[in-house]
């Protein structure tokens, strides 16, 4: 497996030879920042295109075909259009908060995005409580949504924001609990260690029953956290026109739109990291030949492959199910998912203590 830390170390050495250490670190930070933003934008475009094609496939349609080969550059048109669209602040909004809200959401998804271990040696933020940081950072997003709804001075927006506040905060609980279950199994909160610990088998296999339960719970909760169908109440189109971002136009709306898809990716990527071994290739104990072949496939291919697989699962969910009602959403969380994930956590602890996992 190629270790990207060789490359990063080499760049670091090279920069050190040119300038003092403080400057070198500064330059690296800027470079990494730009890299993340570029990757972020690229992923958002890919995801939006994927969503449009996948939903078209489910709906016996073709999806975008006219712009570029197979409509591949359709989303670039959309971005261009949104960039040049008028941005206005409606009368009666709380200007400061109204303009701040999209950035809050972006901030949350950037911070979370930076934690993702794309390949071996390519972790941007990696420290001993990585998972903890990730969970904390991702919950900033709800503040942005609440701000957007509150500051818009629109009744639909505020209902959307309130719904999303109730929903996201509730579902964070079971998502966190599902990840905690896996932390118990992995024995570490550092993301890079968690991944390297899965060399002998992905956690979803080694943790068998409780890991599978946690995976399913995480998928449901993750879907709810990024406000996607069947949990898309905050922006329930047929009820609240566009929910909390009703009053946003141009790029303000564009940020929400991008963040929605990136959050989808982040949720999928976390699932890929925690349950499906991150960039770790598929290893089957005993089949050494097979394992070596698998090792030749670069880590980021594995990583994106897994993440996009989970994204596909979530899109499948979105395009198949009708929307839930707010009381049903909360009942599902508090009456079913939370108790189940608590029991599941306990079960995992027992299994780990007794050594019943693989």
């Amino acid at each position, binding site marked *: 497996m190629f270790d990207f830390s060789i490359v990063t170390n080499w760049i670091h050495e090279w920069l050190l030879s040119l300038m003092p250490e403080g400057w070198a670190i500064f330059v690296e930070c800027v470079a990494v920042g730009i890299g993340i933003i570029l990757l972020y934008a690229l992923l958002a475009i890919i995801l939006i295109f994927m969503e449009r094609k996948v939903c078209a496939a489910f709906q016996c349609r*073709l999806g975008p075909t*006219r712009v570029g080969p197979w409509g591949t550059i359709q989303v670039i*048109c959309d971005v*261009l259009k949104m960039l040049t669209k008028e941005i206005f602040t409606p009368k009666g909004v709380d200007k400061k908060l109204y303009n701040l809200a999209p950035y809050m959401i972006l901030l949350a998804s950037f911070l979370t995005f930076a934690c993702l271990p794309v390949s071996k040696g390519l972790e941007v933020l990696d420290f001993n409580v990585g998972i903890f940081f990730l969970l904390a950072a991702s919950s900033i997003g709800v503040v942005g949504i609440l701000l957007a709804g509150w500051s818009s001075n629109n009744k639909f927006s505020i209902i959307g924001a309130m719904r999303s506040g109730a929903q996201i905060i509730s579902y964070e609980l079971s998502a966190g609990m599902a990840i905690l279950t896996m932390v118990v199994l992995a024995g570490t909160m550092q993301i890079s260690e968690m991944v390297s610990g899965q060399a002998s088998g992905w956690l979803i296999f080694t943790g068998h029953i409780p890991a599978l339960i946690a995976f399913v719970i995480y998928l449901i909760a993750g879907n709810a956290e990024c406000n996607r169908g069947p949990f898309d109440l905050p922006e329930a189109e047929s009820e609240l*026109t566009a929910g909390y971002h009703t009053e946003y136009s141009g790029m303000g709306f564009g940020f929400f739109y991008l963040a929605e898809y990136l959050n989808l990716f982040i949720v999928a990527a976390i699932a890929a990291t925690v349950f499906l071994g991150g960039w770790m290739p598929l290893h089957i104990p005993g089949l050494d030949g097979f394992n070596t072949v698998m090792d030749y496939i670069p880590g980021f291919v594995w990583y994106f492959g897994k993440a996009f697989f989970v994204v596909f699962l979530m899109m499948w969910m979105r395009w198949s199910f009708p929307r839930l009602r707010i009381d049903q959403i909360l009942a599902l969380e508090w009456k079913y998912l939370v108790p189940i994930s608590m029991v599941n956590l306990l079960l995992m602890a027992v299994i780990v203590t007794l050594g019943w996992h693989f």
Partner: protein
Amino acid sequence: MEVTKKPKIKSIPYEEFKDNETLEQLVKQLNEGGTNVVVGVLDDLIDWGRSNSLWPLTFATSCCGIEFMAVCAARYDIARFGFEITRNSPRQADVILVSGTITHKMAPVLRRLYEQMADPKYVIAVGGCAVSGGPFRKSYHVVQGVDEILPVDVYIPGCPPRPEAFLYGMMQLQRKVKVEKFFGGVNKTKKEGKEEQA
């Protein structure tokens, strides 16, 4: 300097479109002062982006709305053009397809919707009622064509227009967007005068 801009639409030659004269006149009008090369290229890029990403507002008052739904559905699939993202909030929509009769009670509401949209915004009058009042022209409560209250870009006649006509109208609008200028802001003031028959 004579500026000739011929907007290209995939798979349909320029000559096969109807009413090219209006379009050419529009190009002439917009480029009277000549064009800067750099700005012109940027304009083209932005127009290309805009013309391929016209998100309609979900707005329908009557029968034509059902045909619009059919256009979005599997057989006609407006998603091929990238227009399937129908926005319910006027702030995020680019084009309002006035599909259906506009009555006196609805007219101020429609006008308000149009004013809520962010620039650049376009209006397509769909169906006989929106074009001229259609079969209800004699009625006491019907607006005689939506161009009385909004600047219309493209007219799609029919009662209701067939889905193919919808697509053709959307393509006509694309052509119109493609000759617009972003820098200089001429489009806004000229808007009242430019009309085109689909």
